């Protein structure tokens, strides 16, 4: 009794039970009060990928344990997403034919998905404008496969 451990989420979720108190859950630092104030100050400057590549997904999983901070936690996650979304959408729609690694580096995995969806839309639109949309292309799987085979041959 009284020992502190780091457990994987799935284990904590399985062992957590309101009736039998096997364990109580402490929030990871990123979701604690001190970091929450950082997010509310300006969420745009935070490197979410460094803090945890699945900030949103993991944060919403933390709501499974009813801790008194749940309401604030949920609110912070939502607000963080809202304030970061505008910038993600903006950059994904306007970075055409550019190196996007600097833009993507600080995004959480969910946000990366959004960014890629935006980029795909932009690229498809550009190719439609240039009249290339009707061109049949080799499937990306085949192309990647060939690339990989080449690099294996070189090595």
């Amino acid at each position: 009794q009284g020992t502190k451990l780091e457990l994987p989420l799935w284990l904590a979720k399985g062992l957590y039970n309101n009736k039998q108190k096997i364990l109580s859950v402490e929030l990871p630092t990123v979701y604690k009060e001190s970091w929450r104030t950082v997010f509310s100050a300006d969420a745009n400057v935070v490197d979410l990928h460094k803090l945890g590549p699945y900030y949103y997904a993991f944060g919403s999983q933390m709501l499974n344990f009813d801790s008194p901070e749940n309401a604030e936690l949920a609110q912070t996650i939502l607000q963080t997403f809202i304030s970061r979304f505008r910038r993600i959408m903006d950059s994904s729609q306007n970075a055409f034919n550019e190196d996007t690694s600097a833009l993507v580096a600080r995004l959480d995995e969910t946000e990366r998905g959004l960014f890629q969806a935006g980029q795909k839309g932009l690229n498809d639109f550009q190719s439609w404008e240039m009249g290339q949309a009707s061109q049949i292309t080799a499937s990306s799987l085949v192309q990647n496969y060939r690339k990989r085979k080449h690099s294996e041959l070189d090595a």
Partner: protein
Amino acid sequence: MFCEKATELIRELHRASDGQLPSYNEDGIRQVLEEMKALYEQNQSDVNEAKSGHSELIPTIKFRHCSLLRNRRCVLAYLYDRLLRIRALRWEYGSVLPNAVRFQMSADEVLWFNQYKKSLATYMRSLGGGDGLDLTQDIKPPKSLYIEVRCLKDYGEFEIDDGTTILLKKNSQHFLPRWKCEQLIRQGILEHVLS
């Protein structure tokens, strides 16, 4: 710690995230199954003891049970994700897979692929008032019946509708019926040249 092998399986798929099919990790799956078997047996004996009054064993039992469920979830996710990738292969490569891809699949996956192929073919035959309709054709709406294509590698002889055969040689250019060469373009043998 339990479940590390299972997580490793998931990681393996995650690393090849662009839809590639890594080779089937038979060894990994077997190790996970062994771990699950051991966990189950330990749990069985502990459950029997717990029934006879050792209630302090309950958290341990729960812990093992969680690990069991986790392992099951990871293995199922591994297998299912592979199935989805294999299904995508049917649409990308057509019904005959290149050998290099086929060697990545386990025997059961090959069997599944063949059955999927069969049911898809049966479905496509039943469409279009009994004439059949190839759903993998014309993914993009066609603008003309014939298109200009360039050969990217030596393919050999190729027969078109009217019975003439043409030789698809590297860097040669042809004017072919679109529906005949769409598949070859998808496979990266021909390249569609826009005029």
